[in-house]
């Protein structure tokens, strides 16, 4: 019933540019309640400037009035009786400051429930909805036309590129494709690596066999392409659910920037090209693992998110496979080392994802996703603690099984201990601040752990043979 947002849209069209001007605030207040709207209409009809400037209001207002009349409320004939009611208008003479009207930002500050949920620190981070509505472009009718300049940016966002591609960090640093970066909205200080490609590279470097740069590149590119395709097909499946959540409102298919067929064709071509790269350039086993990863993510994980909390475990497997792919790309077979790498990543997914999902509980429940943080918060806390503690055990197990030297066990202890400390804090008092700390640290923790692992890699058997011969 409340049309305050709709009114403000048409005010932007007149060139205001500011979403919360006094005029729009006043009118937002006045829209509340049929009686006040009735007065406003009377007022407008008798003021020439108002009529010319806010002509678009009338259409909304008339339609709204008809809605009221349809809902069995008496609305007298305005044309005849308007002059009588003008004298009773007093609201306009008052100072607008006295009137109580709340914008979205004010509401959120005053809404204790929201503040408790989301946290007082850095409220800007969670104001995704405000971000969408403050841009007039996102609230206007747009034609669904392909603009070839926008395509690379759209494809990257389809692929959730900050997750997949390592070279998007180059874009973020303005080294390549500066136009693409301008189309993105993010703070210049942030630096997010493509996690999936990074884990695959780490897996390759850790592999037992010799390092071949061409297969290394092909392996990483192949995994990146597969994750691109998985993400785009996931977005195709989840259009109505993404539109309900603040975090995902700006996605390509939700906004209608591309047709679903376009996105699916992009996903399929990426997937096929990635798989063929892996099969012909690297290994049959790596290609097979890539295919299983793709199928797991698109056909099992995305529907399962709506039915049971087991999706987190499946998602953890999906995250654990890329380093194994890197390992098999190097060696061509599965070893204990591969499983340790996979195990480390499997364990890492839990503190990472549970911390992330804790702050998004209202959105998840509204959209109908069944996550541990919503349905079983106790289990959520326990699993984060368990798996972050198991990371310590795994990193000690690595040198025992000759995957790394013993320096890794000592290097990684402080990292893992700090992670478990944060998980312990989250376990004891699970609120938004602790979860955010844990999430942020998990983003730093993984690359550091992988670099430490690479540094203290156990020497490969070929290198040992060469040493003996000399």
């Amino acid at each position, binding site marked *: 019933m409340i049309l305050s947002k709709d009114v403000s849209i048409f005010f932007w069209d007149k060139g205001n540019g500011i979403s919360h001007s006094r005029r729009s605030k006043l009118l937002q207040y006045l829209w509340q309640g049929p009686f006040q709207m009735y007065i406003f209409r009377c007022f407008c009809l008798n003021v020439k400037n108002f009529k010319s400037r806010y002509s678009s209001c009338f259409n909304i207002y008339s339609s709204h009035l008809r809605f009221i009349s349809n809902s069995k409320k008496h609305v007298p004939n305005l044309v005849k009786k308007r002059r009588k009611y003008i004298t009773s208008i007093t609201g306009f003479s008052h100072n607008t400051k006295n009137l109580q009207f709340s914008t979205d930002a004010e509401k959120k500050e005053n809404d204790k429930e929201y503040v408790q949920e989301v946290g007082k620190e850095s409220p800007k981070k969670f104001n995704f909805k405000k971000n969408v509505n403050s841009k007039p472009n996102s*609230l206007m009718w747009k034609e669904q036309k392909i603009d070839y300049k926008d395509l690379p940016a759209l494809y990257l966002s389809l692929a959730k590129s900050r997750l997949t591609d390592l070279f998007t960090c180059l874009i973020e640093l303005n080294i390549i494709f500066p136009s693409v970066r301008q189309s993105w909205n993010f703070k210049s200080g942030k630096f997010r690596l493509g996690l999936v490609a990074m884990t695959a590279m780490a897996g390759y470097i850790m592999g037992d066999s010799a390092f071949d740069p061409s297969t290394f590149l092909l392996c990483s590119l192949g995994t990146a392409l597969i994750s691109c395709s998985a993400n785009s097909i996931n977005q195709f499946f989840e259009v109505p659910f993404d539109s309900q959540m603040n975090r995902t409102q700006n996605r390509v298919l939700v906004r209608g920037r591309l047709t679903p067929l376009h996105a699916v064709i992009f996903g399929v071509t990426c997937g096929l090209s990635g798989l063929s790269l892996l099969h012909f350039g690297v290994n049959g086993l790596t290609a097979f693992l890539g295919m299983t990863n793709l199928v797991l993510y698109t056909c099992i994980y995305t529907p399962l998110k709506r039915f049971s909390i087991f999706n987190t475990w499946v998602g953890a497997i999906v995250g654990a496979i890329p380093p194994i792919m890197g390992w098999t790309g190097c060696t061509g077979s599965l070893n204990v080392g591969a499983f340790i790498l996979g195990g480390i990543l499997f364990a890492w997914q839990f503190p990472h994802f549970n911390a992330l999902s804790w702050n998004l509980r209202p959105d998840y429940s509204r959209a109908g996703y069944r996550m541990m943080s919503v349905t079983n918060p106790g289990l959520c806390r326990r699993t984060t603690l368990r798996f972050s503690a198991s990371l310590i055990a795994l990193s000690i197990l690595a040198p025992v099984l000759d995957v790394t030297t013993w320096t890794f066990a000592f290097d990684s202890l402080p990292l893992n201990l700090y992670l478990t400390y944060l998980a312990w804090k989250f376990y004891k008092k699970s609120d938004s601040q602790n979860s955010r700390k844990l999430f942020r640290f998990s983003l730093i923790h993984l690359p550091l752990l992988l670099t430490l692992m690479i540094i203290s890699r156990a020497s490969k058997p070929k290198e040992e043979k060469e040493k003996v011969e000399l």
Partner: protein
Amino acid sequence: MLSLNTVNLYLRFVCTCNSSFRPLNKTVIKNLSSKSSTSVKNTNQGKKIDVKLGKYDYVGPPHEKANIRPLIFYCHDRETRLETLYRQNREETQDWNITFWSHHNEKASFVKKKLQEKYANNYSSSEPKSLTAEEMSVFYKSFLDENLRTHSQYNKEWYKRNFKNLYLAFLIVLEKIFKRKL
């Protein structure tokens, strides 16, 4: 329910399709006459569109309650059978989605408000009206559990419709490439 300004716009789009359409199927005729005129009304909530509508599909601002962006579908002269089916399917899915999500979001917000009122009555006026995260999490869990069946039914239906849309769009592309009726 619409004002006169808005009706003209919609009629323009409806009339072009009806005038030049050559039906091949009885079911198609039925669908066109009953569905196409009403679907646009429902999704646009009787608002005026400030953009001059050209020969493309238009995506609009998100629906108030349903948060889904409604589309205005362009129907050109000499539309093939597949294209009409595709357009109708998209219109139907859009209507269905919007009705479902508006109803669903009403449920979600209505119960929340009720809870807040319930707890606010116990507090004195000086204390702030708020619900702790734990109480809200209980509500979230109960909401999800209550709606599990509806969600699962919706999911199945959504997947079916989505794949049908995709298949039709794919066939249309093939039709254009090979310039043959499929």
